[in-house]
């Protein structure tokens, strides 16, 4: 990375981060992932590129994300991976977002999510490595939570 080296805030996204670093207690970041636990389904059941369903559980304090893509006649099971959770500010501990990576061998899909008014917004960044001619692509989808036995 090049650029000016003299800035006081170089290692901080913002002035706010810098000031908060002076006040924060030491130790690792701890963000509570519980807002995501449960089963979520896509609001748009017509999109061919859609993620159909996610089931999220907390195991040993880690958010585990299990995804199913839409396939016919049966959903495609992506498997389960650990997620990294994020709050909405430096000083809060409730998760508003998570990221997770699925590596399928021929492609990688990175999930980047955030919660908004009870809806989960999932963006996926999809990179192909199989020379199939398919474009790497981006999606943005919306999900709502259902009872675990409702799907």
């Amino acid at each position, binding site marked *: 990375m090049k650029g000016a080296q003299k800035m006081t805030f170089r290692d901080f996204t913002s002035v706010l981060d810098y000031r908060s670093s002076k006040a924060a207690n030491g130790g690792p970041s701890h963000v509570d992932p519980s807002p995501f636990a449960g089963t979520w389904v896509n609001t748009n059941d017509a999109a061919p590129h859609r993620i159909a369903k996610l089931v999220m559980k907390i195991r040993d304090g880690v958010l585990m994300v299990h995804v199913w893509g839409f396939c016919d006649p049966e959903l495609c099971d992506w498997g389960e991976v650990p997620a990294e959770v994020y709050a909405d500010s430096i000083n809060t501990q409730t998760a508003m977002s998570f990221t997770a990576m699925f590596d*399928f061998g021929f492609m990688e899909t990175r999930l980047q999510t955030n919660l908004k008014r009870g809806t989960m917004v999932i963006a996926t960044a999809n990179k192909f490595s199989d020379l199939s001619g398919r474009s790497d692509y981006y999606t943005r989808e919306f999900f709502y939570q259902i009872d675990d036995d409702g799907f």
Partner: protein
Amino acid sequence: MESRKYFRAGDGADLANDGVDRTIDVAPFVGTWINTMRETKGFVKLIVSHRDGKLFVQAFGASAPELCDWGEVEAYVFADRVDSRKGAAFSANYDTESIEVALQANMNLGLLVLLTFNRFKDGSGRSNYICREFFHR
């Protein structure tokens, strides 16, 4: 057949060797982008440039008396569909001693919507957090 592998039905298109140039068009992103919130404490300005077939992002954070120059990093661009070359989003990463910042940007109604995923590495106890901001040209 490699191209038939998919984990979502819409990804199953077989596009290999069809002679179509699928270089993703990055033109929608190139330029100088200013945060719509004048008093932001986050990124004030982004300069997005294209050279040698690659996309680059230079971010400037709020600080005084001068903006904090985060330097230039390469970005990765994404189309809006598996069979499209229209640039829809890009991602980039900053990695410093104390923090990793993953940038995810997409276009919406002429605005650049930037989501940053901020992960601290310094044991300061600060929560990892996200920030969503909007930029105009």
